[in-house]
């Protein structure tokens, strides 16, 4: 270790090579740990925006060498006040690609693979290849999706304890203005995103009758122009929030309406804010939250210190408030729990099974695609896969699942829980009636 002082890992080595008493249970300090982190650990960063840019930098400088980043967005001018990997000349280019390139230019030896696509476009196996998934997202839906993906890998022993090797850790960050959170999700051990979904209250929408009849605020006038007047005037043409002409039109209509009712305060900036639901964002909050996420990622991967348990909040509005809260799991969680148990006759066909999902009160899942142990039993899309799997629909599920007595299947489709349609993934425990548990039951074999 004589070279430690002059090596690139000078500072990190102190933490990774030396024993300590306030460390994680699996900590085995030494050069092998540092090298393994560099050579074998694979981390996926979801989102290359305000948090994503910071996360890539932080992880690249925290001993990780193999990183992937996925983001479907292109760079905009309004990103430049915080997404520090982007320059004015990058506007219009894919975020993931530019972010990966910039970090690789500056940090020697780091390899970052960019994925310029939607998170739903990737196969499940893609996500399973990573040791840790780090989320830098700004939407509840996207978090929910990745959470469901990571939880779908989780398997349970017969006694309903999680099988450790199937736990896919996630680290999630989020910010708004001077506030933010960082959390560690170890599916099956700590609450998953869905267990504590109440932490993200749904956005308040204005009642349509207020907009139409009794507007009182500038936002009411803007939403009237956006949600009611636009459709009246542009029959059939969809409103595009990214089209400046559309936005100008809404702004002008909102001004007219505000004048009619004597309501002050409609500005172009507010119009954009209301219509696009813009969340204010600054560099410093993103830096704080990303750094906390990167540090936890390093701790999970190396055990070099205790892990955050399990939810950190930051609020810098009035003074400084930082708090770690230990939330508890929802034992009945549909996403990270052992799964909804469905008992079937061995004669039930895949088509019948898919129909049942739509009726099942705890699922209400329509247009379901079904996979079993990574094998596509039926896929709604893309058309090629649909055609390839269509013939399975008339076959008994029991046969398609290899005639096991019970096993886990994953289904993906449109859930209409809480009167809201959202793409969602569910884990189901299918048990066949009248079939004795045999050696082919892989769940049982694993638990034994």
């Amino acid at each position, binding site marked *: 270790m004589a070279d430690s002082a002059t090596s690139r890992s000078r500072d990190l080595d102190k933490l990774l090579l030396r024993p300590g008493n306030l460390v994680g249970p699996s900590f085995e300090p030494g050069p092998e740990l540092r090298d393994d982190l560099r050579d074998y650990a694979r981390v996926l960063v979801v989102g290359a925006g305000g948090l994503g840019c910071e996360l890539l930098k932080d992880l690249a400088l925290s001993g990780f060498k193999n990183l992937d980043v996925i983001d479907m967005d292109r760079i905009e001018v309004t990103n430049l006040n915080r997404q*520090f990997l982007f320059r004015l000349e990058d506007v219009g280019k894919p975020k993931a690609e530019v972010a990966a390139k910039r970090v690789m230019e500056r940090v020697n030896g780091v390899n970052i693979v960019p994925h310029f696509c939607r998170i739903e476009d990737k196969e499940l196996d893609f996500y399973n290849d990573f040791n840790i998934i780090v989320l830098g997202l700004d939407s509840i839906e996207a978090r929910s999706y990745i959470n469901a993906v990571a939880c779908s890998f989780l398997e349970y022993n017969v006694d309903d304890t999680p099988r450790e090797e199937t736990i896919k850790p996630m680290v999630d960050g989020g910010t708004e203005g001077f506030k933010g959170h960082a959390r560690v999700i170890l599916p099956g051990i700590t609450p998953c995103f869905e267990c504590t979904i109440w932490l993200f209250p749904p956005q308040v929408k204005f009642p349509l009758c207020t907009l139409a009849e009794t507007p009182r605020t500038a936002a009411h006038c803007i939403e009237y122009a956006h949600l009611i007047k636009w459709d009246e005037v542009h029959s059939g043409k969809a409103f595009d929030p990214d089209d400046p002409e559309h936005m100008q039109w809404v702004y002008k209509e909102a001004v007219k309406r505000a004048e009619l009712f004597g309501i002050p305060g409609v500005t172009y900036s507010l119009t954009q804010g209301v219509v696009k639901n813009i969340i204010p964002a600054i*560099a410093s*909050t993103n830096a704080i939250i990303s750094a906390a996420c990167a540090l936890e990622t390093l701790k999970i991967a190396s055990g070099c210190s205790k892990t955050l348990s399990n939810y950190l909040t930051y609020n810098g509005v*009035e003074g400084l408030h930082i708090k770690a809260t230990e939330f508890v799991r929802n034992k009945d969680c549909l996403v990270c729990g052992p799964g909804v148990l469905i008992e079937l006759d061995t004669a039930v066909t895949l088509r019948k099974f898919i129909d049942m999902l739509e009726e099942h009160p705890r699922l209400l899942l329509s247009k379901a695609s079904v996979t079993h142990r990574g094998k596509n039993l039926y896929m709604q899309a893309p058309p090629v896969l649909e055609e390839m799997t269509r013939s399975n629909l008339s076959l008994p599920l029991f046969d398609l699942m290899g005639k096991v007595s019970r096993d886990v299947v994953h289904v993906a489709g449109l859930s209409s829980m809480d009167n809201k349609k959202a793409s969602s993934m569910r884990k189901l425990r299918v048990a066949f009636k009248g079939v004795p548990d045999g050696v082919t039951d892989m769940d049982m074999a694993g638990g034994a």
Partner: protein
Amino acid sequence: MAEAKVKYDRQLRIWGEQGQAALEKASICLLNCGPTGSETLKNLVLGGVGSITVVDGSKVEVGDLGNNFMVDESSVGRSKAKCVCSFLQELNDAVKAKFIEEYPQALIVTNPSFFSQFTLIVATQLEEDSMIKLDRICREANVMLIFARSYGLTGFVRVSVKEHTVIESKPDHFLDDLRLNNPWPGLKSFAESIDLTVADPVAHKHIPKVVILVNMASEWANSHDGKLPSTRQEKQEFKELLKSRMIAMDEENYKEALESSFNVFAPRGISSDLQLIIDDSAAELHCGSSDFWVMVAALKEFIANEGGGEVPLEGSIPDMTSSTEHYVNLQKIYHAKAEADFLVMEQRVRNLLKKTGRDSASIPKHTIKSFCRNARKLKVCRYRPIEEEFNSPSLTELQKYLTDEDYSVAVGFYILLRAVDRFAANYNSFPGVFDGGMDEDISRLKMTVVGLLNDLGCNGQTLTEDLISEMCRFGAAELHAVAAFIGGITSQEVIKLITKQFVPMLGTFIFNGIDHKSQLLFL
């Protein structure tokens, strides 16, 4: 310019054009540009501060490549200040970026007047004696100062200014200034002009809650010797009375009135926080009083006279179920009262300026207006000189922290962060920097800790063996993730200090990167 407005759109929504203008006028000086300092400046450069000056005398070493994003292979052997500065410039060409290749601890001694040209100094990774000297210099020159340090899995951030006053503190949740417990005649007569017993159900459910509550409160007072509900039972009865006036289950306006009925019961007058501010000795004016304190003095007069115990009305109302007409009229009434209060305040401010020998027009109208709107939310932050805190920290607080489970690790790190500087002064390096001699360093650090605690008045106390060993394990490492965290916190506080919006942290922030039980210590 138009492009800048788009570029800064997401932050303009937080601190507005005035906040942005303050940032663009600010000149920031960074001392030491390791990752903690570099990351702090990165966040400020992105936000568009006017100018930065990076002061660091060291050359880039290979080890720096592993923790600092602002240097790369080609930087090795070159001036760190220059390399960091040129990367920062890349982030925002609107910022004037300069560097000075000198060691800050030397500059503090040889050229103390250097610092007076800046708005704010960000001092990172400084040792105790340099901190004390710099603090004296900055207080003397009236330059804002913030200290930041990353050390292994711990670190601290400490603001040091004599006094920081805030008009626009922008708290998240604050009671609306509705005056339902003390309506002025204009509001009362408007409310009386609306008939709560109107038969038309559509009209009935569009009477705003403010009108309902003002009228019901005066109805109650008429039958209770002019008093408002005060006991629990009276409050309950008042709510029942409200409910009894609903004519349908779906009357949102009545539901809102029920939820807001506490406004009627709330005690009149100002909060204890505001009382402290108007009673502050700084509100007794002299020729050097700041604009803020001149306005506080005027506010004090207003409360005692025209205000009848209340501050100037804020003048805005929240959205509430109402017909457009009632709502707009209500807005006008609140606005008019706020305008009248402002005119009285303005006159008082101008008179006080004249009395203290200043130009009576020297405080602009919009500043007084903003002061009136935010009168209930004023904040005054004062910070002890760092030397005082170091030499005589509050012993009662210190003892409390040492025995409180939630604080014990944070205060342990506070002591250790000071102990390592003593250690370095005695043994010429930080504990655990070299791989050999760990055991010796641990026992030496332990002795240093005991000595330090003794000097602070905590005789015979020590810290846990685990924490002392952990500090030695850190070996003064500056980990990137920790530096980015500390730098993020530091830049956030700098933004609050410069924009004079929101409330900067008080006390010393101690980062606990082990289990994130970080704390603010008031010593």
